[in-house]
């Protein structure tokens, strides 16, 4: 896809004049990405993007599709906003962020509809939902507007992967317990009575609470 190539190429050029000491895959950049995945995971540590995490995790396939779409938009919007960071007037920066993100999401939606219609049907309303995802704007505010292009790309990627990881971790038990299936294939014995609670919103809250507890037990977060 040409969009992907663009995001890959663009930071490499910017890299040369902004952070000459770090290559694209340098340890520092990988660390930025790793922070997003684990230490500073958007859902568990920043509590961002919870709305969509609750809405799309009743089935694993939905969660995976949403994860891919969000990671892509997050990387693109972080890169573009980081490019523009020195020109954006402070007073209207949020409006600018929303405009850029919305343009991106519509662009992707239209391209999918034109060239990959079946995929766009599978994604359905998810693509539109990305605009409202707090992670995209949250990362733009917190990271892309203060940092050069390449680290911003890695930050987007890391946060996207961190979000994907949590989505799948919530979706797997929800689908198994709520529908008795995984990716549409039956995994529970026929005698198992589906737990309706799991596919409704409260099930997501409960699952998220349990996961939060487990993950914080593994890696405690220091309260400031």
């Amino acid at each position: 896809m040409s969009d992907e190539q663009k995001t890959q190429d663009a930071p490499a050029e910017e890299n040369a004049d902004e952070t000459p000491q770090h290559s694209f895959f340098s340890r520092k950049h990988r660390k930025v990405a790793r922070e997003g995945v684990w230490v500073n995971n958007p859902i568990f540590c920043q509590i961002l993007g919870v709305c969509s995490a609750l809405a799309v995790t009743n089935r694993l396939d939905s969660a995976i599709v949403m994860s891919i779409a969000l990671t892509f938009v997050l990387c693109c919007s972080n890169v573009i906003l980081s490019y523009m960071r020195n020109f954006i007037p402070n007073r209207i920066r949020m409006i600018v962020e929303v405009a850029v993100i919305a343009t991106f999401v519509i662009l992707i939606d239209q391209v999918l509809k034109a060239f990959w219609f079946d995929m766009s049907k599978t994604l359905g309303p998810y693509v539109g939902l990305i605009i409202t995802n707090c992670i995209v704007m949250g990362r733009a505010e917190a990271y892309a507007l203060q940092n050069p292009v390449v680290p911003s790309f890695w930050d987007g990627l890391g946060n996207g992967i961190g979000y994907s990881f949590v989505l799948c971790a919530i979706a797997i038990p929800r689908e198994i317990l709520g529908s008795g299936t995984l990716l549409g294939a039956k995994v529970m014995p026929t005698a198992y009575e589906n737990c309706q609670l799991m596919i409704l919103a409260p099930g997501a809250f409960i699952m998220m609470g349990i996961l939060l507890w487990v993950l914080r037990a593994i890696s405690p977060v220091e309260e400031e």
Partner: protein
Amino acid sequence: MPVRNSRLYPILFGVLLAVVCATLLKTLDVALGARIERNRTYDREKNVVLVLVGRETFASMKPGQIGQTYKSCVHEVRQNPGAPIEYYRCADPATKKTTAYVLPLEGMGLWDKVRGLMCLETNLDTIRAVSFYDQAETPGLGGCIGEAAWAKRFDGKQIRNANGAVAITITKAGTADAKDPNEVDGITAATMTCNAVNKLMQVSIKRFLDEVKK
């Protein structure tokens, strides 16, 4: 930077950004609009064939065959001037005898417009198959109306009751009487979508019946 702090700068920046974004999106729309429309039409034709031949046969068809079947079987697309509904009369390619009708099921779902197709046997009562091919209901809940597993529940049901009135109903999940040919079981946790679909289905069927009698 002093320019960035001036009062005019944010306004100019905003206007410029709006123009750039709008131009970009409009260009994209002009460039891809026709292609998207073509995809939509093809998707609809594909679904006409799907409800006509049934899901099992459709799954084994090659893309070329789908187009051919559409051309040979869909005898005419009827749209009387000013008519509220457009429907397909399907006929045997050799004898020209009507074999089935395909009618659109269209209306508002819970969030957005829902488009579907229903194939009826020539008795204008028995359902051959149903497919909701364009919808934006809550994914995983109301969105299940777009799935084969649910649409299959309509197969072989009847739209009318013993008195001849339109009686097909989507019930609350788990309450449908399997023996009742007019009842289709709804989706768990998607009662509002099911109610909306139930309404648009009944309205569409009534419109179609009025139109086909003309």
